[in-house]
């Protein structure tokens, strides 16, 4: 245990000895009189205070801006809410207009027919495949007067080209109408307001 310690001391003994100190070079000595206090530099003070004021001002400015924008944000949120309501109202108001039964009823009101036999023209020999009944054929389904596929969203909505007509509401009513019309197709409709006459000018 003592061997390493001994060797350390041996090493110390090998160091060259320091030169003797001169008395005149001593660093610590007694002062004749206390040193006069140096006046603090005004500039630094000004910078520090100005800096603090500046920081405070900037912070206040930022705070004002944030508050300001939070009001703007609030106004915009309000505006967005109003627009969301408007969008919802408009979406609700057009819902169902694109439904197939409404489109088909409109098409039927315009005199369009559907469900025709497919007819093909074979180019190689000009042969017409299928019956060329085409535009004279009756519609396979009656999308307007016997509309059977209900849609609560467009029930009562007038058709585009025929404001007096609309799809009736509810499947039950339509089905009954169909059953009634199927049962007595040969019976002419009752005359309510005299014989129908064409409107002329």
């Amino acid at each position, binding site marked *: 245990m003592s061997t390493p310690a001994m060797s350390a001391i041996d090493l110390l003994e090998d160091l060259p000895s320091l030169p003797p100190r001169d008395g005149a070079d001593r660093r610590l000595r007694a002062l004749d009189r206390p040193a006069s206090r140096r006046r603090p530099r005004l500039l630094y003070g000004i910078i520090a205070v100005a800096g603090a004021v500046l920081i405070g001002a900037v912070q206040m400015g930022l705070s004002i801006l944030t508050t300001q924008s939070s009001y703007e944000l609030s106004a915009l949120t309000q505006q967005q809410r109003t627009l969301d309501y408007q969008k*919802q109202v408009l*979406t609700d108001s057009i*819902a169902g207009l694109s*439904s*197939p*039964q409404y489109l088909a009823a409109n098409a039927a009101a315009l005199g369009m027919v559907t*469900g025709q036999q497919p007819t093909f023209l074979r180019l190689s020999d000009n042969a017409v495949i*299928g019956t060329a009944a085409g535009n004279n054929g009756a519609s396979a*389904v009656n999308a307007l007067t016997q509309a059977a596929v209900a849609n609560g969203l467009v029930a009562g909505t007038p058709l585009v080209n025929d404001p007096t007509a609309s799809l009736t509401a509810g499947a039950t009513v339509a*089905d009954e109408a169909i059953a009634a019309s199927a049962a007595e197709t040969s019976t002419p409709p009752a005359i309510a307001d005299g014989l129908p006459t064409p409107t002329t000018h």
Partner: protein
Amino acid sequence: MTTRVTRSPRRRTVVALGVVLLVLSLFVVRLFDIQVVNAAEHVAESQKLATGAKQTLYGARGEIVDTNGTVLASSTTRYDVQIDPTLAVKGIPKVGDDGKTVKDADDKPVLVPWPELADRIAAVTGQSSADVQKIVADALAKDASSQYATIKRYVSTEEYRALADLKLPFLYYDKHPARTYPDGAVAGNIVGFTGSGGEPLEGIESLQDQCLASEEGSVTYQKGADGVIIPGTEKTTAAVDGGTVKLTIDADLQWYLQQLISEETAHYQADWGGIIVMEVKTGKIRAIAETKTVDPNDPGASATDDRGSRLLRVSYEPGSTFKPVTAATAIEQAGLTPTSSVLTPDRMQFPNGAVINDSENHPTENLTLTGGLVQSSNVAMSQFGSLVSPEVRQQYLEKFGVGGGDALGWSGAPKAGFSSDAKNWDNQTYYTTTFGQAFTVTPTQVVSVFQTIANGGVRLPAQLVESCTKADGTVVTPTEPDPVQVIQPQTASEVSQMLENVYAQGTLASDINIPGYRLGVKTGTAQVPDGKGGYKDGLYVTSLVGFAPAEDPQYVVLTLFDEPKTNRMSSANRSVFKKAMMQVLTHYRVMPSNQATPLLPVTQ
């Protein structure tokens, strides 16, 4: 070496440091406890005590769309209008044109009386003013200091805004997520509907709720005195919207077929009717039309029985539409060909005592297997079918799907299948199973049988849901059972050719002929059990099922009537089948066959 002098202050320092560290670690533990362990509790408490507010954010329930993306169901918002009766009857100060309160001679505000306010409310909600006043009067009669009564539930956003614009301080509005169905009853039987509280009740709405349901979120914030959110206090947990369910249904085709089946069902005065269209090469159901169909916008308008899908909940004895299965079995197991023939009287007593009749009288003839199908002869099919052991026949029926349910997983799907196994079949059942009696199937299974025959003998699972697209864009496709090779491609092709001959040579040939196309069809007039062990007299479930174009089948169409009255046989289905098939072919722009059906001999 340390001396006593140096050791003492160092120890003190160490002890002091230890104490400081101990206190510090206590603080750390406490901080951890406050910030992490019990954080939620403290945040909640702070919101409760401070000026904070918490709002629930509702995610939108997902849409249900058809195969082309047409929206069949989407979300909207409805409002409950509530009133404070005590406050309402007091009236409100009248506001002049200048925006200031009008005052009388005594400098008191002039009040607008309650009946006048009730008029204004009623004008918006569509109720009568008397109704509105009655609601308030009733609430006050019950409790003189009542502060709560409901004027109207589930009003639209438009009405809600109109009411809000009246600026009546005693009205409150409760927001409800609700559903709207732009196409109404188009596929209403499949789409289903939700209850008034938004809970799914029927159809896909209920079946796919896991995909459609949204997750609620919340926003917490602190408000200043003027109601403005204090910057930096807002904390949002976003709501997650529900996923979009895409169906295999084609809404336009679906509408046409619904309109069609409705007209035809009324014409033949059937109890109800239905049409199913399936894509041969995918098993996807493109339309599933039936009468009557619920309008999900107003399910209350339909009778309880009409609110679901009958087609997916009914099972019946298929009758003659299963004769092709017998033909396929006999071809594979008894080595028959479409021209194999058998002597067929219109009534026949078999060795085991069973008696089988044909539906129409005819002279005894030597019918081929093709002829058995063309003339839909029970006697011929019984003879051909009994060449194969009943166990094998049952195996084949099972491979074609009988008793195996379907892949749709529909709620309330019927239990269909054999009432007894082959070894227990009685003498009559031994033969009737060759023409679709003594076991029940669902309409979807009948369609699948024809899909199998049209698809080279490979049965694909019937499919109604294409995919679920989650809010983050992930697409989840449902896992379907594997396709099954039911019969050999050669057998399928032979059966298909025979079915073509039913179309070309059967009694219905001229009625369902679609020029330019080759079709394979089969009729079915199935007896309906009367519930007393017998069959109803003169009432049938009639069906006509077929595929086109036969040389490269694309679509299977099944039409079905339950107990038609003006024409009680399967011929009732001719016009509806022709119109339905024609619409399918034109809708999907299926090219004409451009070739004639190869005719096979009916008799020999």
